[in-house]
């Protein structure tokens, strides 16, 4: 068992924003997160509202689909990093059915902190989410010192 630097309650209390145009996937993610014990989960299927919500709720983590009508995940990644302050660490985990290396590279280049292909393993995704949140909280702690 790895050393717990951050209390699990703090991680589970983090605000998570999930954006996917596919209703089923959003429901699946909500299910997974609730099962894990997360308390502050926000879901969106309309990507055009994503930036506004992002600004409004200031999530600790974003779960982002890439292929979406109107505004796609790449555009949102750019918009997020434009909005965030330079010293902000607000991780985005890309969850996409586009498995091409190009999509992976592009997403990571635009600021995504992790990338998981669909169909994904629920356990793996759960672990990656908690890892990213832990990193964010550690970063926040370092910055506060």
């Amino acid at each position, binding site marked *: 068992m790895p050393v717990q630097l951050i209390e699990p309650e703090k991680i589970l209390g983090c605000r998570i924003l999930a954006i996917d145009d596919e209703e089923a996937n959003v429901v*699946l993610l909500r299910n997974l997160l609730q099962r894990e014990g997360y308390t502050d989960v926000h879901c969106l299927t309309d990507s055009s509202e994503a930036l506004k919500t992002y600004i409004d709720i200031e999530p600790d983590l974003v779960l982002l689909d890439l292929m979406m009508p109107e505004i796609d995940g790449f555009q949102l990644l750019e918009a997020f990093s434009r909005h965030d302050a330079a010293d902000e660490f607000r991780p985005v985990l890309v969850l996409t059915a*586009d*498995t091409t290396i190009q999509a992976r590279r592009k997403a990571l280049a635009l600021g995504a902190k992790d990338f998981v292909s669909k*169909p994904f393993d629920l356990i793996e995704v759960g672990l990656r989410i908690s890892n990213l949140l832990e990193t964010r909280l550690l970063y926040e702690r370092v910055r506060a010192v």
Partner: protein
Amino acid sequence: MRLWTDRPLAFKGLVVIALPLAVLLGALVSLYLASSAEARAEDDVRRAFAIQRDIYQVHALLAEAATGVRGYALTGEDRFLEPYRKSERELPPTLERLDIAIEDEVVSRYFEDLLLVVEEKREGLRSTVALSEIPQASSREEIEEALIANKLALDSVRREIDKIQQREAVVLDERRALVDDVRTRFLTLTAVSGIVGLLGSLAAVYLFSTGIVRRVSKLESNAELLARGERLTELPEEADEIGRLTQRLVGASALLRKREEDLRASEERFRLVIEGVRDYGIFALSPDGIVTSWNLGAERIKGWQAHEILGEHFSTFYPDDTRDFLPKQMLERARADGSAEDEGWRLRKDGSRFWANVVITALRDEDGELQGFAKVTRDMSERRRSEEALRLAREEAEAANLAKSEFLSRTSHELRTPLNAILGFGQLLEIDVEDFNEPHREAIDRITMAGRHLLALINDLLDISSIEAGGADLQFEMLDVASVLREAHDLADPIVSSAGLSFEMSLPESALAVRADRRRLTQVILNLVGNSAKYNTDGSYVRLGAAQDDEGQVSFFVEDDGPGVDPDKASRLFTAFDRLGQNKKTKTEGTGLGLALSKSLVESMNGVIGYSSNDPGARFWFRLAAKDAASSDVIEAQES
């Protein structure tokens, strides 16, 4: 004639000068002989005259003496004896002179006679004088008698003198005739000498003219022909200096002609090459840009014929928008840098434009003086068109490729998105499996199993499609075969071991490299090893190995001692979804795309994949290029 002409010039000159001189000398000698002969003859005449005069003198002396003696005898006066004494004094030297002078024999005879009668006469005169000195002692008769005897003696003297004179006259006439004869003869001789001398001189001049002057003048005209570069007239090959000079001249002419012909031939070849070049417009410009030559290529490219364009300024070839400055610029650049190159639009005679590559080169003579420019024009329209076509084709191919990638990406997305929900919710149900009863559990199991199979299918299918579309990201590098095999062995070992088989490895004998994409190569090996492990249900081992084959390629193989493949069906091994019915007998998993995918992967790395029986068992192999620069270029072209 040859003998004469072959003589050296010095000899000819000697002859030509000596001949008239010799003739002149002959004439002089004959003239001298003539004059001396004439002098001799005249001498004779003069002597004859002298004889005559002395004869007269003898007669006159005697006659006067006789007259004086008579007077003395008659008068006894002494003064009458003066003539007698004079004759006595002068006669002896005169007679002596005559004796010397007389040469003619007849005259000599007569002279001897004369001497006798003269002596007689003188005796008579002496006796008469003696008689007269003593006038008493001598009688008149005796004196008269002596006088008469004297008279008779004088008469005989006269007769003798007449005879001599007559004879001397004859001799004189003879002498005169001789002198005339000698004079005539020598005059004739001189005239003949003169004529002979003249003819000789003429002959010498003729010989000189034929032998030297005419030939020299011919030689001169030949030299003139040579100077003009024309063919020489034939000359006989005499052996003298002129003949040799002629031969030299002929030799020089032949050499000159040969060089000229060589030069002309070379120029002609060069001209033919230049004129014959059809793909390049090659022409010359004067220093100020006037067209001075034109070739076939220029005519073909630009449309003007030589007679239409010679003398025109080359700015005619430039379209309106560049005509004012570009031609000038080009010449200035060529003048400054030696040559100038440009690519751009030019005009044809019919006004149409063509894309041209132009090189202008400054032509300078040995002193660096600008003589003009050489201009080479190439019509690049075709190349430009084909480049354009190539660019369009490339763009189209890129667009098609992009569309294909886009399609694959979208298909992948569209298939995976629902599968994500299926597998995700299935997984959720699996997590809550305790909440369900047995039939539901089995249903959940089947849903997730089928979902995973579908995912595997989709993955393989998309893999194959993307490889075949050339969209797969192949990263070629030189790989060490042994390390690739060891890595694959480590990865596949759990699979083989779990099938209860021993996993053997046959490494190449020496270090061996292969040019391939590491991930794809490993994927193929794992696929084949996985197949062997899966289907080798009654054997004991799976063997992985590689070796260099005869053609220098690297041959990888995976073999086992399992049931192998039915030879009739071996040809269908690499066909997608054709699992040869094996999955019906056994519960082997798989999408049926494994070998098809392997084939695509191997072929994407320019390799060949195949199957052969291992007896017992199966043997799958594939060959890749060990190191092939040529094919690697092709691969890189495909990658980009």
